[in-house]
């Protein structure tokens, strides 16, 4: 996220909001909720519209055929502009990492120098006498008729079988074969694709073609392979168009173009890198510590019990004596607690006594491990929850949808809302996961930001839990039913509603984090006002007012009050006077 983009986004947020609400959630869903059966198609039209309304895509996914086509086009362009052969053009492009403009710049700046360094000779070094019938190969020193001898642009003559040996050795050495030069040590002439076609072995020709294709993606700054295992697509990215690096490949894997980690919007690459590094350094330790140790009840240092009785004595300077089982102070133990070696007082007594400042500081230091554990556990559990959801979606698409379609007598196209719910869950789990990395690095002293962040995260998370629960559990009865159930349409309404509400929550969250929670800075005052005065935000019912006040309204409603009602569908807290939910547009019941 560049700071400039942040500012841009921050200024634009209201107009984005308007756009977002008026187009996506306002019209069609209203129709669709009010009378689903008649207007079922609206829902799907709407879904299509959402797709097409996504911000302009700044990347292109390339299949192998696309890559080849682009490569050919670039070669043709260079060959035409510089009036050189396509073979030379290809060598030049390879040398300048497939940047047409760099080739042009270098060539027109100093053609002679370029020809020399790249090895594209205008005239042969060795002039052949046209009358020569026989030539001596420079490698095997045999004499051959002219037709059995080949040469690169330099004219050094080698027989075809020596060329074959030379080229195929170089191909089996790796992609360096794309930069092959004449075998003569004093000569730098480039060996191009025309010489490769001399090869007899199709395997070598294919390998060379593969290296050439790979080079077009790997050596080119504007493109990368999709990092998903087994995926053969490449991505070209137009870096000029803003801060969003998320790319989703046709193979359905989403990743960040900038750092090629998995997609991590709204968290920036630096935070992600730090977090991943931290995890790799600490997670194994962490898992071990969690599994095998208990913290000393006094100083919080993790302790591994590797032998003997329950009487623990922490190492100096702490020297606290306690019971391993109940973590209570040892001096309390004896007959009253069931004996020294089998403590039956199994609940941990809250620590008593007053902490002075140094002790508190020490505890904070020990707590940093706990703090990390807190965020790591949540990060990891969202990760695994997402993996599970991916598997569930797969199962849904391959087995359940068809089954459900049979049982409920619905065409599969009408069950798309289930797939969409799962896709939303998967996306939300991803975002939520990364917000825990974000939260870990959010400075402790930024209280307002932290509070705002945790509020947004909490709202989004509880919305997602409801959605996940609904998609996972409430579908089950319909799958096991023998005949169509009347409640199925209610389920449809609920699940589709939750999907769209959860999407809203997450878009709020993403936008807020991408702004660096800047709403807190500019609106911090109104934020706190809203919490103390009921009507500051809640009274505004006009559309624009509602839009701008989204966070604040719901925030205030949570903190005080009987002047609000909670929507049964999405739990959004609405002002008392509203008759439909302002988040999901359901009628108040």
């Amino acid at each position, binding site marked *: 996220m560049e700071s400039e983009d942040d500012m841009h986004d921050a200024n634009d947020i209201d107009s984005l909001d308007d756009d977002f609400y008026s187009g996506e959630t306002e019209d069609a869903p209203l129709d669709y909720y009010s009378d689903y059966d008649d207007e079922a198609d609206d829902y799907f039209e709407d879904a299509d519209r959402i797709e097409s309304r996504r911000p302009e895509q700044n990347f292109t996914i390339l299949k192998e055929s696309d890559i080849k086509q682009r490569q050919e086009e670039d070669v043709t362009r260079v060959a035409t502009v510089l009036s050189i052969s396509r073979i030379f053009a290809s060598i030049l492009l390879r040398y300048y990492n497939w940047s047409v403009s760099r080739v042009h710049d270098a060539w027109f700046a100093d053609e002679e120098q370029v020809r020399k360094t790249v090895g594209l000779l205008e005239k042969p070094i060795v002039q052949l006498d046209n009358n020569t019938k026989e030539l001596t190969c*420079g*490698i*095997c*020193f045999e004499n051959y008729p002219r037709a059995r001898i080949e040469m690169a642009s330099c004219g050094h003559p080698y027989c075809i*079988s*020596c060329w074959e*040996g*030379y080229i*195929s*050795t*170089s191909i089996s*050495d*790796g992609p*360096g074969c794309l*930069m092959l*030069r004449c*075998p*003569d*040590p*004093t000569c*730098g002439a480039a060996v191009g694709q025309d010489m490769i076609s001399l090869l007899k072995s199709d395997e070598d020709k294919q390998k060379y073609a593969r290296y050439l294709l790979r080079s077009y993606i790997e050596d080119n700054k504007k493109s990368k392979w999709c990092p998903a295992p087994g995926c053969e697509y490449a991505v070209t990215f137009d870096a000029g168009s803003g801060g969003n690096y998320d790319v989703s490949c046709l193979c359905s894997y989403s990743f960040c173009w900038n750092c090629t980690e998995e997609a991590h919007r709204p968290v920036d690459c630096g935070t992600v890198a730090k977090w991943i590094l931290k995890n790799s350094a600490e997670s194994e330790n962490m898992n071990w510590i969690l599994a095998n140790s208990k913290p000393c009840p006094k100083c919080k240092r993790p302790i591994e019990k590797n032998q003997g009785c329950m009487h623990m004595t922490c190492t100096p300077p702490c020297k606290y004596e306690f019971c391993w089982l109940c973590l209570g102070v040892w001096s309390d133990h004896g007959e009253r607690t069931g004996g020294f070696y089998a403590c039956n007082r199994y609940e941990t007594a809250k620590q008593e006594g007053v902490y002075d400042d140094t002790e508190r500081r020490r505890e904070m230091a020990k707590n940093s491990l706990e703090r990390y554990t807190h965020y790591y556990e949540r990060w990891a559990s969202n990760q695994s929850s997402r993996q599970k959801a991916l598997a569930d979606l797969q199962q849904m698409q391959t087995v359940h949808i068809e089954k459900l379609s049979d049982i409920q007598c619905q065409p599969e196209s009408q069950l798309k809302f289930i797939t969409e719910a799962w896709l939303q869950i998967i996306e939300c789990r991803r975002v939520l996961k990364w917000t825990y990395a974000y939260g870990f690095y959010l400075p402790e002293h930024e209280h307002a930001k932290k509070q705002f962040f945790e509020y947004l995260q909490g709202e989004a998370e509880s919305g997602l839990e409801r959605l996940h629960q609904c998609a996972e559990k409430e579908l089950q009865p319909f799958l096991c039913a023998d005949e169509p159930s009347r409640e199925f349409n209610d389920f449809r309404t609920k699940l589709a509603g939750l999907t769209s509400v959860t999407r809203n929550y997450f878009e709020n969250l993403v936008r807020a984090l991408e702004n660096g929670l800047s709403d807190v800075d500019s609106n911090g005052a109104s934020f706190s006002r809203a919490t103390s005065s009921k009507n500051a935000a809640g009274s505004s019912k006009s559309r624009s007012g509602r839009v701008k006040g989204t966070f604040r309204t719901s925030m205030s409603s949570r903190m005080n009050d009987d002047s609000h009602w909670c929507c049964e569908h999405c739990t959004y807290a609405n002002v008392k006077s509203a008759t439909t939910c302002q988040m999901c547009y359901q009628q108040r019941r």
Partner: protein
Amino acid sequence: MASQASLLLQKQLKDLCKNPVDGFSAGLVDESNIFEWSVTIIGPPDTLYEGGFFNAIMSFPSNYPNSPPSVKFTSEIWHPNVYPDGRVCISILHPPGEDPNGYELASERWTPVHTVESIVLSIISMLSSPNDESPANVEAAKEWRDRRDDFKKKVSRCVRKSQEML
């Protein structure tokens, strides 16, 4: 079946027998194996190695000349570019693929146009001007640089030994 490699090596052997080159002599270790050559390099005049007769074995791979042979001295020799076990380390014996910047230094590395003669001539020139920047024998390189007298002494000992072996 005679491969390209063995035909080429036989041809080079024949040429060297007919037209011997000053500074070394070459033959096979075992008459039935064209891939193992025994060469004797005469210490080049006006160098520390003058007067020595150093034996070495050249082993050619089956895909010669596309890959380089390896050369190993069997006589004791003290030199910055010769490993303590006798293996010779010079750039023309390295295949170009090993170096990530291979294409820049292609002219100093192995290419199939090299022959037994050009390899041995490179070794002779290595004897007269050691390269102490990427030494195979670090001790020898340090001595060559810092304690030239000690270095000379060790080389003279090798030269004397090589004469006694004759």
